[in-house]
C-alpha cells in the first residue's frame, strides 16, 4: 500500500515535469507555422500555371498604361548624327590681289557689296609705272574681305580682296571613325543649326579619302544651295545622315522589348492573357526595332508598359527576397 502511494506521488510529479517542459518546447518550436502556411498557399496559387501567362483586366490596362498594338511591317529609318560647319565652296571663291605694289587711289566696294564679274573694285597707282590700274572682280559674288584704304601703300599679297559666291555653300561634316562604315556618298542628310527649326536637306557628295591625322576624323561634304544666304560660312551645324530607310516585315517600338529571365521578350496576347515571347531582334534605331524571329505579323502584342506584366510574373521572386 505504501509503495503504491509513493508510486503515485512520483508518477504525478513526473507527469507534471513533462507537461511543463512540453509547454516550453512547444511554444518555442513552432512559432512560424501560421505565417508559412499562408506563404505556401500563395506560392501554390502562382506555380499552378504551367505556362507563364498574365491575366489582366481592361481597366488595368488603362490604369497601368499598357498599350496593345498589332505586329506588322514598317519603315526603319536609321541615321548617324554628325557635326560640321558651313564653308565657302572653293570653286566660288576668288582672292583678288592687286598685281603691282602701289598706292590705293580709289575703293569702289565695301565688305558685303555684291559684285559682278569684271566689275571694278578699286583703283591703284603702281609704284613703278605711276600709272593707275583697275582691280576687277573675277567672279560674281560678294565681297567678304578686303583690306584696302585710300592712300594706303600696298606692297604684298596680304591686301587681297576676297570675293565669294554664297549661293551655294559646302557643309563639311566631321565623320568619326565609328561612323565611317555607314557614311556613303549620295546619302540623304538633314542639316540644322540646332537653335531653331531651320533645316535643309542635301546629299553627301564627297567623302575625304584620308582621315585627318590630328583629329582622326574624315570629312564628308554636302553641297547646299544658299540663295538667301541663311547658311553663312562659319556656322556650326548638326547633321543627321539617313543611313537606311528600309521596309521591314515586323517592326515594333523599342518600348515593347522587355528583358525577362535574361532573354529579350515581347509580351504577346494569348487567349485571355499575355505571355512573354522570346524574340530575336535585328536592326534598330533609337525608337523602333526590327523583329527577326518570335513575332508573327498580325499578332497582338504589348507595345508599351510591358514592365507591369513582367513584374507580375516576377512578383513571387522579388517578394521573398525582399529583406531588410
Amino acid at each position, binding site marked *: 500500500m505504501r509503495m503504491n502511494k509513493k508510486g503515485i506521488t512520483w508518477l504525478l510529479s513526473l507527469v507534471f*515535469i513533462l507537461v*511543463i517542459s512540453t509547454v516550453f518546447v512547444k511554444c518555442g518550436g513552432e512559432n512560424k507555422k501560421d505565417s508559412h502556411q499562408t506563404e505556401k498557399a500563395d506560392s501554390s496559387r502562382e506555380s499552378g500555371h504551367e505556362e507563364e501567362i498574365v491575366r489582366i483586366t481592361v481597366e488595368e490596362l488603362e490604369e497601368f498604361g499598357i498599350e496593345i498594338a498589332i505586329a506588322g511591317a514598317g519603315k526603319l529609318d536609321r541615321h548617324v548624327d554628325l557635326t560640321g560647319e558651313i564653308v565657302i565652296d572653293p570653286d566660288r571663291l576668288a582672292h583678288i590681289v592687286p598685281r603691282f605694289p602701289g598706292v590705293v587711289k580709289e575703293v569702289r566696294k565695301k565688305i558685303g557689296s555684291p559684285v559682278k564679274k569684271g566689275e571694278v573694285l578699286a583703283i591703284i597707282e603702281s609704284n613703278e609705272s605711276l600709272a593707275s590700274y583697275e582691280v576687277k572682280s573675277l567672279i560674281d559674288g560678294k565681297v567678304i574681305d578686303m583690306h584696302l584704304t585710300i592712300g594706303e601703300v600696298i606692297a604684298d599679297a596680304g591686301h587681297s580682296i576676297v570675293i565669294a559666291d554664297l549661293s551655294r555653300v559646302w557643309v563639311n561634316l566631321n565623320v568619326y571613325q565609328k561612323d565611317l562604315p555607314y557614311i556613303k556618298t549620295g546619302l540623304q542628310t538633314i542639316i540644322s543649326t540646332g537653335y531653331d527649326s531651320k533645316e535643309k536637306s542635301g546629299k553627301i557628295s564627297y567623302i575625304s579619302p584620308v582621315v585627318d591625322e590630328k583629329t582622326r576624323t574624315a570629312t564628308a561634304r554636302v553641297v547646299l544651295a544658299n540663295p538667301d544666304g541663311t547658311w553663312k560660312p562659319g556656322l556650326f551645324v548638326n547633321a543627321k545622315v539617313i543611313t537606311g530607310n528600309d521596309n521591314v516585315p515586323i517592326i515594333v517600338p523599342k518600348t515593347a522589348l522587355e528583358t525577362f529571365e535574361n532573354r529579350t521578350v515581347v509580351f504577346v496576347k494569348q487567349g485571355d492573357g499575355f505571355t512573354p515571347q522570346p524574340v530575336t531582334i535585328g536592326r534598330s534605331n533609337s525608337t523602333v526595332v526590327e523583329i527577326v524571329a518570335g513575332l508573327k505579323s498580325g499578332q497582338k502584342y504589348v507595345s508599351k508598359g510591358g*514592365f507591369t506584366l513582367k513584374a507580375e510574373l516576377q512578383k513571387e521572386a522579388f517578394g521573398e527576397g525582399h529583406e531588410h
Partner: protein
Amino acid sequence: MKKLIRFVLKNRLLMLALGLLIVAGGYYSYNNLPIDAFPDVSPSLVQVFTVTQGLAPEEIEKYVTFPVEVAMNGLPNLEHIRSVSNFGLSVVNVYFKDGTDIYFSRQLVNERLQEAREQIPEGFGDPEMGPISTGMGLILFYYLEDTSGKYSLTELRTIQDWLIKYQLQTVPGVTEVLGIGGWEKQYHVELDPNSLLRYDISVNEIIEKIRANNLNVGAQFIEKNSEEFIVRSVGLAGNIEDLQNIVLSSEDGIPIYLRQVADIQIGGAIRRGVQTRNGIKEVVSGQVVKLYGTNSSTVIRRVEKKLKEINKILPQGIRIVPYYEQKTLVEAAVKTVTNALLIGVILVALILILFMGSLRPSIVVALAIPFSILFSFIGMRFFNISINLMSFGGLAIAIGMMVDGTIVLVENIDRMLRKSPEEESKFHVIARAFGEVSRPIFFAITIIIVVFLPLFTLQGVEGKTFRPLAYTVALAMLGSLLFAMLLASVLASMFMRKPGTGKKGQEIKENFLLRNLVKIYKPVVSYFVKKRFLAVFLAVGLLIVGVVIFPQLGSEFAPKVQEGTIVLRLTMAPSISLNKSIRTTQVVERRVLKVPEVTEVITRIGRGEVGAHTDPINSAEMYILLKDKSEWRTAGTQAELEDVIREEIGNIPGVLANFTQPIQMTVDELLEGVRAELAIKLYGEDLNTLKEKADEIASVIRRVPGAADVQPDQVSGTPQLVIKIDRHAIARYGINVEDVQQVVHAAVGGETAGQIFEGVRRFDILVRFHSDFRGTPEAIGQILVEAPKGIHVPLSQLATIEEIVGPRQITRENSQRFITIQCNVVGLDIGTFVENGQKAIEQNVKLPPGYLVTWGGQFRLQQEANKRLIVVVPITLLVIFLLLFSSFKFLKNTLLILLNIPLALVGGVVALWITGENLSVPASVGFIALFGIALENGMVLVTYLNQLIRDGVPLDDASVKGAILRLRPVLMTAMTTALGLIPLLLATGVGSEVQRPLATVVIGGLFTSTLLTLLVVPAIYKWFATDMKNEIQTN
C-alpha cells in the same frame, strides 16, 4: 520570524513612516517615469549611413561600405556588423551587445569613422551616424497641405527643409526631422554639348568658371574719419541671371556667356523617394525622430505645440497636417492597461468586502495594492523601465496577487480576533495570528517571485518585450511582501477591532455569503475525504483532458500587437523606375480610397533624407487613415477591415502588398531578421558564384524531406548600363581613364559647382548635359571626350556600352558577402532536418575555397531559448522545491503542494482551447504565473491542515475542518487574482492582444487549481500526512 513580528509591532510608528516614505518615493518616481507604447525591442545598434550620388552597389561596397566595416572591427562589446550596399547608399549596421550604452557605442563608432573617412576616396561621400534614436523613435509624420495651389513642390520642400525642419529641431527631445517628397531645389545648368564644341569649352572649364565667379570675401577694414569701415567684396551669384552672365571666355573682346552654352533653370535634385497622397498628387512630408531615452508622450506634446506655432508663421494657405502620431498609440496602450488596472482594483475591493464582511479589514487589504504599485514604480525607475503596455500589464496581472499575502494575514487576524478570549489584548491576538501565517505568506510570495525568474533569462525580442513584465510582477510582489510583513499587521492593529467592541449583529449578517458557501462546501468535501479515490479519479481525469487537448493547441511566438494604424507595404519589381513606382502606387491608393472607412491615404515611396528609412524606390509604405471606429460599416475590427481592403485592391499587377504596422515595420527593419524558420547563409566572394551556388543549395534542399518554401534571396534584378573603357582605344588618343570618367560623371550624372545662397538657405548648382544628350544609351555614346591636342572623340569609340542586370543590393555580414536561402520545415523535427540538409549539401554541392555555409534563422534563436529554459526551468523548480521543503520540512507535504501545478496547467490549457487562443510566449508567461498562484493556494491549506494535526485533531476530521476554515482565504486569493485579470481578458483596446492569452491561462488555471485545492487536497492529504504525524510523534 518571531523577532521580526515583535519588532514590527513594537515600532509601529517607524513602520508607518517607512511606508509613507515608500509611497512618496513611488509617487515621485511615477511622475518621472517615461511613457512609451511598448517596450523598445530595438537592438543596441549604431547605423552608419553614407550617401554617394550615383554609385552602383558594387562601387558603394568597394569604396565606402568596406572601409567603414573594416574600421568598425574589433570595437568592444561589438556583436556583429551587417551592411547593405544599395544604389547610392551604404548602410552599415554596427550591432552591440544588448545593454551597451548607446552614447558609449556612438562615441566608439565615431572615433573609428575618422579612420574610415580617410580610406574613402574623395567625393565618394562622408559616412555619418544615424539619429540617436531607436525603432520606436518615429513619433510623428506630417505632410504639407497647400490650399492656395500657388506653391510648387520645390517651394514646399524648401519650406520644409529650411523653415519647418529647423523650427522643429529646437524642440527638446527631437533629434532629427527628415524631409521627403517634392523636389529639393537646385540650380540646373544644362549644357548643350554642341555649343561646347562650337566654342571649344570643356565641361570642366565651365565648372571651374562657375566656381570662380561665385564668392564673397572680406578685406578687413579701412579707417576713415576716425571710423572703421569693414571692407566686403561681394561677388556671390544670387539668381539665375547672375549665373547666365558668367563669362566663359572672350575672343577679341567678345565674351562668351554661360547662357550661350547652357540653359539655366531651377530644378529638383535627384530623388530616391516620393510621398504621394490619395492617388492624385505628390506631397512634401516630414518625419519627426525622437531622441533616444526621452519620454515619448512629452516630446509628442511639445512637437504638437510647436507645430501650431509654425502653422502661424507659414505662408498663407500652407498648413502642416500630421498623419501619423505615436501619441495615439501610446495613449491607447496606456489607457488599455490603466483601465484594466483600475477595474481590477475595484473588482478586488468588491471581493474583499464581500468575503470579509466588513469594511475595516478590507481597507487594510486593499491598501496593499497602492503600496505595491507605488513600490514597483521606485523599482521601475531604478531599473530604467518605462511605463508601457508590458510593464503596466505586469502590474495588472499582479493586482490580484498583491493582496494575497495580506488577505491571508488579515483573514487570520479577523478570525482570531473573533474567537479570542475577551481578556487577550488586540496586539497579542494580532501577533499570534501573524505568527501563525507569517511563514507560509513569506514563502508563498517568495515562490511567486522565483517563478518569474525564467522570464529574466529570455533574450532578444522576447526578452525585451517580456522582461519589463517580469520586473514589474516581481517588484509588485516584493512590495506586497513588504506590505504584508511590515505594514499589514500595524495597519490591522490600527483599523481592526475586536468584535466584542463592535456591533455583533451586523457582522453576522455580512457573513451571510460565506455561511451559505460553507453549507454547500462542507458535505462535498466530506464526501471526497471519505471517497479518496474519487478525488484521485477527478484529478487524473482532468489531467487526461489536459493531455488530450494540449497537442490540439495552435502555437505562435507572440500575438501581433495591433498598433491601430494600418500600413500597406507595397513591393514592386526591383528594376522599377521612380515614375512607374509613383504611378503604380497611386493606382493602389485610389483602390484603397474606395473603401468607405478610409479617409486618406498617404504613401512614402523609397527614402527621403537618410536616417530613418533605407528603402529602395521599389518599396512603398502606405498609411491608411480611417474614420472613427463608430462610423465603420463594412468591418468591425481592424483585422476585418484589412480583409475588406485586401478584397478591394485585389491582385495588383506587378505589386506584392502586405499589411504591416509602423513600429513593427521599423523594428523589423532594424532587427534585419530572417523571417523563415530556417536560413541557410552562404558566405563568399563572387556575387555570381554566390548566386549560382545558392540556387544549387536551394535545389538540393528542396529534395530533403520536410522542406517547404525553399527560396534563395533574389540578389540581382537591377539593370545597369555599363560603360567599359577600351584601354587600347584610349591609348591611341592619349586619353586617361580618368578623363573619360570625369566626362561621364559630369555629363550624365552631373557635378556640383558650388551653391547659390538665398540668405542662409543654400542650393546646389548642378552642371550636367541637357537630358536630350544623356537620356539614352545612344546619346551617351555620342558624348565627346576631349583628348590632348584639342581633338574630340565620341565615347562609343573609346568604350563599349552594355546593358546588363546587376545586383540590386549587396548584403554583407562580418565583412563577407552572403546570400540567404530561406526555408520552412513541415512535419519534421528541425534538428533532424538540419542534419539531413547538411549531409545533402556536403554530398551534392561543391563549394569553391573560401565559401562557407551556416545554418541559422528563427529556429536557432528558439533552440537557444529552449536550451536556456531547459536549464532554467528545472533550476526554478528546484528552488521552489527547496523553498517549500524548508517551509514545511517534509518531503510529502512539498510533493502534495507541487501536485497543484499540473492541475492548474490543465485549466490553463483548457481555457486556451475554449477561447481559441494559441500557445504563445504570453500564454507561457501565464503558465508561469499559474505555478506561483497554485502553489500559494496549496500552501495556505496544507499549513493549516498540518497545524490541526499538530493540535491532535484526527486526520479525517482535520481534513474537513481545515478545508472549511480555509475556504475563505483560498477562495478569496483565487477570486481576487482571477477578477484582477478579468479586465485584461475582456479588454479590446490597443495591446490587449498580448495580455489576453496570459489572462486566459491564469483564469482557467485558477479554476482547476482552486477546485483541486478545495476538493482533492483535503481528500488525499491523508496519504501525505501519515508520515508527518509519525515524525512528529517520534520527534
